[in-house]
């Protein structure tokens, strides 16, 4: 057959499905004996199979260092699945699925390991018609990227045959600052083209995050209000009761700002603040998000001091249990200057958001787990009801990302009775109860998209770069400044330091209590 005068559009694909339709492929997970593989990746692939979305002949190859047989690997994954899979484990599906899971033991630096991996993949291609389609998942720290990518290239594993594809998914953290992210991007780009590089941000795979665009652009009720004329301010909160657990060394080199804000919360902020894209293609959506990150006001060191609060948790209690201070955690320096909490006031300097503050806070050892966006509308004029009853609160639209994904709207309502008493009521929408079935896990959607070649929910190189530019000016003011702002502290189990409350109080506002 020759492909010279090929039609470029496949007429048979018209209108087939609005779900991604991946071609059969093989998935290689580097770091397959790690926590992420057991808790998230394999359960996600399994649930894709349960839902009939995983191509039937997909093989999953786990690449890691410690010796292990296929059977032991499968048994361990099967046990983990019982704990971490949203649909539990059905024996029939598991038998079929696990038969296509393989363990590949090798050091990342060992060329022989890649040679035998290439042979294995070729064999699977020949047996299963996977046609050379490969998805490499780097579930490893960024310091391992270069070595693995180099070896993949050395063994031609990044090369595709006619009509097939090879893609790479990279996990966070993607760099430590703009310059290291740039270096990392360079290294990746020598081996995989940008369109084959999928920088995962699992927040973007969450249903509610995906629903932000739908809420804004598929409903005529919100968009006319979605600007500085009607919105007073926006609060984005990501709270978790956990401390650093066993990840002390990683956290010491990262901190809350890098760990959460450079990626997840910036992405969420972009979805809230972006203009409508011209279409839903990956690049149109990401072009609009990029404009938002670029419009984020960059602070001077003095402005950082008055717009950003960093803090560390001290001793306290979470869920009724006493917990140690951050500096006493396992493998954390007793003089650590790493923040476990950060709150800042950001501005998106464009026409739509002129003067609207975006207050962002993220912290560990908070009283409860929750990520949400709260959009505060401006008060009604101070006549009629607002004149009679002081403190009628504003309308607040809350988008809950996790847990209990959903949306609620606070409105004012008359309390039944002869007296005119007004009270706020909440209109609540819960994903799980409204749709009668649980949302898929973020990793399911993201893995499926990567297999199907849809990069909309993945961060593009220029987005990552622009986000680091914003984060770097804060990090630099903290770490490269002769007079850095103080590190505040808060008791574990509280909602953060007093300084964060003061940040909002200065604007006449308060943080939402979750």
């Amino acid at each position, binding site marked *: 057959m020759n492909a010279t005068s090929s039609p470029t559009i*496949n007429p048979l694909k018209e209108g*087939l499905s*609005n779900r991604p339709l991946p*071609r059969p492929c093989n998935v290689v997970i580097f770091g397959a004996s790690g926590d992420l593989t057991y808790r998230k990746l394999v359960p996600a692939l399994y649930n894709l199979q349960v839902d009939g979305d995983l191509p*039937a002949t997909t093989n999953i190859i786990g690449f890691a260092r410690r010796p292990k047989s296929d059977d032991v690997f499968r048994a361990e994954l099967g046990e983990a699945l019982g704990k971490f899979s949203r649909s539990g484990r059905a024996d029939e599906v598991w038998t079929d699925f696990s038969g296509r899971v393989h363990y590949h033991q090798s050091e990342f630096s060992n060329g022989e390991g890649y040679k035998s991996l290439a042979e294995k993949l070729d064999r699977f291609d020949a047996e*299963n018609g996977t*046609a050379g389609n490969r998805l490499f998942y780097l579930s490893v720290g960024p310091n391992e990227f270069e070595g693995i990518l180099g070896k993949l290239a050395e063994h031609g594993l990044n090369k595709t045959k006619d*009509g097939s594809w090879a893609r790479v998914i990279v996990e966070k953290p993607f760099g430590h600052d703009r310059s290291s992210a740039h270096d990392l991007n360079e290294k990746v780009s020598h081996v995989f083209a940008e369109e084959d590089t999928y920088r995962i941000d699992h927040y973007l795979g969450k249903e509610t995050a995906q629903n932000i665009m739908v809420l804004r652009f598929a409903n005529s009720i919100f968009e006319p209000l979605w600007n500085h004329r009607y919105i007073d301010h926006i609060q984005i909160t990501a709270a978790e009761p956990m401390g650093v657990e066993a990840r002390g060394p990683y956290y010491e080199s990262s901190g809350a700002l890098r760990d959460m804000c450079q990626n997840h919360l910036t992405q969420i902020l972009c979805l809230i603040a972006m203009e409508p894209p011209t279409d839903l293609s990956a690049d149109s959506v990401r072009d609009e998000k990029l404009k938002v990150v670029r419009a984020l006001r960059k602070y001077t060191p003095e402005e950082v001091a008055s717009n950003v609060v960093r803090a560390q948790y001290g001793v306290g209690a979470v869920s009724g249990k006493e917990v140690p201070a951050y500096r006493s955690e396992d493998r954390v320096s007793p003089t650590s200057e790493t923040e476990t909490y950060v709150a800042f006031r950001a501005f998106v300097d464009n026409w739509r958001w002129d003067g609207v503050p975006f207050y962002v806070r993220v912290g560990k050892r908070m009283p409860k787990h929750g990520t949400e966006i709260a959009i505060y509308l401006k008060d009604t004029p101070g006549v009629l009801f607002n004149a009679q009853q002081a403190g009628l609160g504003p309308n607040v639209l809350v988008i809950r990302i996790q847990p209990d994904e959903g949306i609620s709207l606070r409105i004012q309502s008359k309390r039944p009775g002869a007296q005119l008493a007004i009270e706020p009521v909440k209109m609540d929408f819960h994903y*799980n109860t409204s*749709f009668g079935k649980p949302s898929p896990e973020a990793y399911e959607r993201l893995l499926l998209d990567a297999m199907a070649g849809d990069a909309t929910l993945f961060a593009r190189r220029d987005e990552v770069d622009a986000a680091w530019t914003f984060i770097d000016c804060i990090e630099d003011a903290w770490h490269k400044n002769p007079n850095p702002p103080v590190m505040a502290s808060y008791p574990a189990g509280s909602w953060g330091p007093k300084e964060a409350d003061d940040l909002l109080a200065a604007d006449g506002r308060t943080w939402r209590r979750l």
Partner: protein
Amino acid sequence: MAFDPSNLGLQVELNQISSTLHALWETPEQRTRACLLNLVVYCQGTQQLAANTELISKFVRNHACRAILLGDSPAAPVQKTSAWVQAHCHINKAGAHEICSEQITLLAEGLAPATVANMVMANLDYDLPLNLWWQGDLPKNTDSPLWQRVDRLIIDSLDWKNPRQDLQRLSAIRSQFGSRIATADLNWTRTLNLRQAVALSFDNLALLAEIGTINSLEICHAPESKLTALLLASWFAAQLSWVPTQVNPTSLHFRASNGGNIKCKLLETAGDAISSLSVNSDAFSLSLQRETGSCLLHSTLKSAEGPVQSHFPAGNSDLISLLTEEMMPGTRHRVYLKALNSLDHLLA
């Protein structure tokens, strides 16, 4: 067989349906009523009520809805109405509370279509889309107000006893309501996985280059599934701009826009609705086969480059899977309507 209403729930007077449903939700248990759509299931008589209740109880796991099951016996000698209500509940996450959907069953005996339509209309959940699953042959008359409210008409063309007549009725419904009513044909969904597998095979650029050289198709179908095979052939014709030139009981002939002739053989074989399909040209042959009960479609592509085997998901062909697939929001039926135009010629 005597009519057994035992799985239809609580029998109630027609005017007490909504108060009985309200009472269901006033119990202190941790139960949440969920509803995203109205599903009206129309069937003739009482025979299918129990089986349809089973289907509904499974369907609501993926699509929370108000289901109204309607058994219609217009020719019954005595006018009579009966009603039952029940909730189908399931736990969606360990420890989370139960999610429930309501089912109302209505039995209409000896009533005029407009009266039956009013009974249904009175029990719809307000402001939610109305999906009407019409089982069996389509009605001649669609003037009742119920049809004015339908958003999606679900049919299974395999149930049609007189396909030509039903196709004409469907076309009349389309001209009466235009694109306001989307049509979902479960028989079309039966071919979905095959269509997907064929379409994905042509993602291979070398194969795509040869798409205009296809000169024969061979479709093996179960004896009762000829209409499924014809729909599949219609899809090829519609998407590749083939015009039917001759229709015989076991073969169809088409002309492509480049002048080439295509012969489509229809072979009756026991087993799945469609057990195999092959698409051939002088340059390649692509064959797709499904063993009975297998969840995979085995594909073999033979060309000058040698044979390539691959697998595609075969999907489930039980009614619930078909219905669930059809109810995926946003499923657009432009391609189906194009295929129907071709099917019209093939039913001659």
